């Protein structure tokens, strides 16, 4: 079902934030929100990106669109070098990659009727006639399962699930190839989550889209993704096909994450408890960043940073267990 043409290629992408403090700002250091991430997204696939809050997964999504300007690395979309684009070409590119956010409250302009929020993208897209724009908006709203007559209404008149559908319609208005969905269902009730996920899958199949699906919810990712990348403190620690990853996780962090979800725990295995919180991103641990919380920590772990390598064909991990 997937042809293996990479739609998006990311190489060694970095996004560092300089942190300062005080009245007269003095540098405290750098937060490496995204630190050397390499990923491909193949045409037509759903890549799930999982990790704890603050691991950099949202920043990665924004950095791809240069909504957060990357500090270093390479991004190539359909063969175009994204980081070398000037402002105008970047705006064209932004039509092809769209983003859907988690919070349906703040992701729609409260002072704009939803039809205008959707239609605004069409103006940028060159659909200038109001009549044609209205028809396109109506089609988009129907596509996401909303009545076309709702276009005149304001965001506060919709439920969370409906607002998320509007967010999806707005993203679709640009006729994108890739949608970065940043926790798109995390704020919704479970029953509504399923509806929105099904909608996203239907649209993907109909339009041949690709998704980068950012989530902290493994059950959701298991439902929707083709491949899954696991992120920890700004780095990808494991990447594999969904079935492979859920059946046979290699990285201890992935193991711990999976064991924490009751329905996903493997044959009678007990829950692996991670000790402590994620270390301060200002001072990441030396060696493997996970070693402070790892249940399989070895002598080498605090000393050397493990390389991200293909352990089994198609299954990548960064861990000293697999030299």
């Amino acid at each position, binding site marked *: 079902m997937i042809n293996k043409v990479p739609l998006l290629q990311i190489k060694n992408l970095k996004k560092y934030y300089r942190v300062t403090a005080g009245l007269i700002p003095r540098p405290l250091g750098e937060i490496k929100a995204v630190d050397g991430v390499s990923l491909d997204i193949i045409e037509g696939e759903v890549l799930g990106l999982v990790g704890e809050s603050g691991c950099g997964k949202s920043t990665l999504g924004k950095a791809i669109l240069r909504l957060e300007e990357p500090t270093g690395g390479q991004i190539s979309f359909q063969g175009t070098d994204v980081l070398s684009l000037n402002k105008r070409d970047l705006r*064209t590119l932004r039509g092809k990659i769209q983003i859907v956010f988690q919070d349906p409250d*703040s992701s729609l302009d*409260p002072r704009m009727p939803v039809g205008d929020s959707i239609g605004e993208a069409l103006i940028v897209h060159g659909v200038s006639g109001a009549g044609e724009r209205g028809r396109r908006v109506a089609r988009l709203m129907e596509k996401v399962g909303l009545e076309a007559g709702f276009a005149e209404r304001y965001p506060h008149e919709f439920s969370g699930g409906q607002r998320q559908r509007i967010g999806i319609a707005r993203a679709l208005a640009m006729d994108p190839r890739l949608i970065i969905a940043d926790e798109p269902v995390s704020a919704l009730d479970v029953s509504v989550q399923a509806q929105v996920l099904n909608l996203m899958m239907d649209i993907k199949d109909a339009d041949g889209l690709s998704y980068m699906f950012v989530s902290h919810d493994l059950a959701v990712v298991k439902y929707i993704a083709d491949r899954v990348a696991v992120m920890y403190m700004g780095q990808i620690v494991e990447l594999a096909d969904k079935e492979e990853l859920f059946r046979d996780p290699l990285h201890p962090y992935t193991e711990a994450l999976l064991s924490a979800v009751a329905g996903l725990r493997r044959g009678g295995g007990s829950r692996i408890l991670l000790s402590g919180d994620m270390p301060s991103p200002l001072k990441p641990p030396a060696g493997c960043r996970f070693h402070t919380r790892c249940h399989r920590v070895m002598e080498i772990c605090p000393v050397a940073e493990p390389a991200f390598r293909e352990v089994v064909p198609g299954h990548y991990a960064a861990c000293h267990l697999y030299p």
Partner: protein
Amino acid sequence: MRSYIIKRLLYSVIIAWGILTITFILLRVGPTSPVDRYILNIAAKGQDVESVRQAIEARYGLDKPIIEQYLLYMGNLLQGKWGWSFSASQPVMELIGSHWIYSFQLILLATIFAIILGVGLGILSAVNQNTKIDYATSIFSFIGISIPGFWLGLMLILVFAVYLGVFKTFYDTSYPIWSLENLRQLIMPVLALGTGELAGYVRYTRSAMLDNLRKEFVTTARAKGLSERTVIGKHVLRNAVLPLVTIIMFDLGSIVFGGAYLTEIVFGIPGLGQVSFNAIFANDYAVVIAVTLIGTFMVLFINLATDLIYTYLDPRIRYD
């Protein structure tokens, strides 16, 4: 909506009536009399103070019981008669009619000045957050907020009128209202009155802009490929305007007997602030009540206008 407005107007009348009554009673209950300021003159002429006082008070009906005075006053007011100013020796409405324009022009110009520059600088500051422009604007606005308007007025007079001689030291009423000379002589008063508000608006605009810049609909607007100008103007500013309207309207309601009054004193502008100042010290009852009522109606009207503007600005607000 219409019934809401009618209801609010009705409430306004009731509130104004209450304030009028309280003001009336407080003035009459006090130990003062409009005759007080003439006592020395009367005594100097060798007349008997007490008999003259009684004669004058009888002439203006001040010797009658309070309730009778009150009913008389209300009866006249309902016929549109605002009474007689003892100190200015003319009907109250004539007095106010010849002075309100001086306050109005000052307040209007100062408010426009403060809004345009304040909101403009606030936007500039927010868009360039944590840059030198932002820091410079912030320092300027903190200084502006901290300086009292009357002191700034005195300093402006000292520098530009006394040392440099660019302006006159006082407001010259001999220029017609609609003349360039008048506009020119309003520059210092407008600066004195408007700078504090301007500085406040810079801060409010900046923080309202920053609040909205962080919202996800702004990020999605950028992701749509909209230009930064459209993102700021159409999405961020439109949402930042709401808290600004609140604060600007609040200022407008309190400015007449707040900042404008002191500015009028400093520059010798014969506006309503000066009229009420003189009336209070002369125990000129009718004038005090009239300016109090004007102030009351301004606040009530501006509050109503603010609430109506909200419904236009924020689709979430409906009064039904």
